[in-house]
């Protein structure tokens, strides 16, 4: 202190006494506030961050739980197709939204799966139910597509045991367990006939053979039958029929 005051211009003590005479001092409330702040600041820093950190962790956990619950509802649901045989389990993924659209309002998914597909108007052997070009359209993906040229190609490349027809998918399980002989004897339902026509029925005969058979019917006097066959021929081969079917041949 003495060394520091060597260069002091004048002694500070008399001035300190003069200024110290003033009764000016901080209010007690200020004293209490500063002392409290000093104590509050001594709380270990680790205890200051654990509360906000734990709150943040809880919030994050809640968000993850909610996301996992609702995220599961939006994921594709893996379902098993109805069983036609013990080894014929065909698991496929369908979008829940697509499944909802496919069934009627208020109908359960199980009931929708058991509902038979609507039968086509004509079980014509050449009618695949849709054009090949439709498979690229937006509504082509709703519901399982069966039949068509590409289906035939796939069926040809598969082993007989591997082939899964729409019949396997749509048939009721009890019906699937029915005896094969009974099934063969029973008349096939319309939907089954439609789908069977795609895969099992033979190809239509050539127009020449078909037309010769019609002419034979006419010659034998089976006129009504011949007219039905002729109508079918015209539908199957309209161009050929326009060129070759002559009214004189049908008299």
């Amino acid at each position, binding site marked *: 202190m003495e060394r520091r005051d060597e260069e002091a211009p004048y002694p500070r003590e008399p001035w300190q006494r003069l200024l110290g*005479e003033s009764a000016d001092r901080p209010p007690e409330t200020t004293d209490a506030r500063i002392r409290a702040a000093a104590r509050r600041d001594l709380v270990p820093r680790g205890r200051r961050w654990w509360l906000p950190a734990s709150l943040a962790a809880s919030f994050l956990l809640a968000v993850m739980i909610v996301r996992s619950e609702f995220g599961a509802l939006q994921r594709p649901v893996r379902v098993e197709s109805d069983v036609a045989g013990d080894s014929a389990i065909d698991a496929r993924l369908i979008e829940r939204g697509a499944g909802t659209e496919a069934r009627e309002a208020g109908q359960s998914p199980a009931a929708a799966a058991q509902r038979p597909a609507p039968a086509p108007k004509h079980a014509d052997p050449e009618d695949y139910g849709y054009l090949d070009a439709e498979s690229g359209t937006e509504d082509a993906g709703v519901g399982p597509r069966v039949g068509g040229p590409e289906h035939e190609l796939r069926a040809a490349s598969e082993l007989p045991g591997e082939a899964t027809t729409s019949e396997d998918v749509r048939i009721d399980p009890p019906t699937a367990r029915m005896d094969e002989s009974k099934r063969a004897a029973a008349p096939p339902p319309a939907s089954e006939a439609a789908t069977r026509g795609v895969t099992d029925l033979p190809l239509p005969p050539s127009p020449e053979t078909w037309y010769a058979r019609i002419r034979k019917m006419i010659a034998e006097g089976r006129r009504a039958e011949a007219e039905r066959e002729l109508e079918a021929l015209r539908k199957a081969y309209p161009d050929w029929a326009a060129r070759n079917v002559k009214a004189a041949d049908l008299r």
Partner: protein
Amino acid sequence: MGAGDADAQLMLRYAAGDARAFDELYANHRNGLWRFIRRSVNAAATDDVFQECWSRVIAHRENYRPEARFATWLYRIAHNCCMDHWRKSGRRGMRETADYEAVAAAADDAGAEPLAAALAGERGERLAAALERLPEEQLSAFLLYVEGGLSVVEIADATGVSPETAKSRLRYAAAKLRKSLGDAAPD
């Protein structure tokens, strides 16, 4: 140098977590620091600047190094707080010429003799008026020297001027105060 300072040891103890060390430190400097700030800024701002100063002491306790005396560190912080206040208020506010609060407080002090209180009040009023007339630089240097106990070199360091300039400001301040106070001025 500062390590042997008792206040520096208290500050180190407080930084280590001893709250009672702060109480002792605060008791040692509360009146002097309050007067320093009270003379530097206006009455309305004194409390805010005083609390801001101690808040900085508390916040920077872990950065404190006893390389200098604690009082030097404390009053440098106080000087910076006053400078910040002056910058915000545009100028060193209107300090009260008459220290009426001090006079009233002295008169209300039951332990004080009435005549002594009156004399103290009168001297305090004259001192406040004399300090009011000092330029800011001289006032800061004078208060750092008297209230803070800083040396010329420490004042120069705290105010950012050369020691010669600091010593010159101290001389001018004392001369003006003696002239204003007359007989009441110390020798």
